[in-house]
């Protein structure tokens, strides 16, 4: 019989979490404003909720975050700090998903 022990990954300290969640939030705001401008130009209400559009914006924000990390040469720093790639993507996807959820709730409340 073999027992498999899974060690949970180390949790990043609040300083790292704050720095990258803040960046994730700014990237989402940028992606959202750009997408809203394009949707508005097409003559549609940018705050109308569409699941596909929201998922796309979360994906774009996450991808922008990943590109930004490479651009700023931060991979070595983050990996030496024990931050895995999955965790890093979560830093960028999290604020975007929350923001999109907020917009969806606002749209539903408005009816």
């Amino acid at each position, binding site marked *: 019989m073999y027992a498999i022990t899974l060690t949970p*990954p*180390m949790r*990043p*300290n*609040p*300083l*790292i979490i704050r*720095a990258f969640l803040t960046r994730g939030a700014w990237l989402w705001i940028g992606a959202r404003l750009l997408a809203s401008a394009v949707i508005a130009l097409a003559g549609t209400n940018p705050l109308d909720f569409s699941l596909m559009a929201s998922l796309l914006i979360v994906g774009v924000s996450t991808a922008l975050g990943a590109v930004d990390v490479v651009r*700023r*040469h*931060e991979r*070595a*720093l*983050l*990996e*030496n*700090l*024990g*931050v*895995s*790639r999955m*965790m890093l993507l979560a830093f960028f996807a999290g604020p975007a998903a929350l923001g999109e959820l907020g917009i969806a709730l606002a749209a539903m409340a408005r009816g």
Partner: protein
Amino acid sequence: MMPLLVADCVSKTLRGRRILSAGSLRAVPGELRALLGRNGAGKSTLLKIAAGWIQPDGGTLTFDGRSYQQPRLPTLAERGLFYLPDHDLFSHAYSVRAQLEMFRRQFDGDSVEKSAELAGIADRLDAKPLDLSGGERRRAEIAAILVRRPKCLLADEPFRGIAPKDAEDMTHVFRELASTGMAVVITGHEVPTLLAAADHVTWCTSGTTHELGPPASAVANDAFGREYLGGSYSSQT
């Protein structure tokens, strides 16, 4: 002493070119090991695999009593490994102090101010890395190692682009770290500096490695002298 890190029979092909066929690397607590080889011999690739920065095609890595087929740096870093890459370690976005503080909080490390003082960068703590000179950036990286105090340090060409005096100071720090029980492996082409500092030499050539032992034995090795050091170095010693 037992090695803390063993990369065994590691192979790697990059863009269709076989870089490593059977490279091995050991990091032993209390020892400073120099990994030497000509450009393209595979030493940086071997160090990157040992650090979990890239994954090998074959071979195994053992670190701190655990074996890994596909090692990842974040996992190894948690267990006490620090990888100093052949490019800048620090993010351009935050001050040196903020990034050293990240290491201190994450690993319950040493004082940022004290480490910066020891590394000779105390007066530049609030600067961002892009505002530092090459030598200052290397010193800031040394400060990160001092804050982190890892069990094992793998440094890829740490003396790149810095003045001989800075290289001498860094060598002194690496020796000090090894004397505290840290396992240190460094690569580079600064042969006199590396041979003077190292306890052991590993030669990487033609996709494989040779353990040459202490620097005196390495220098006395005919093939190493002929194929790596060259005639002028051999005649100087």
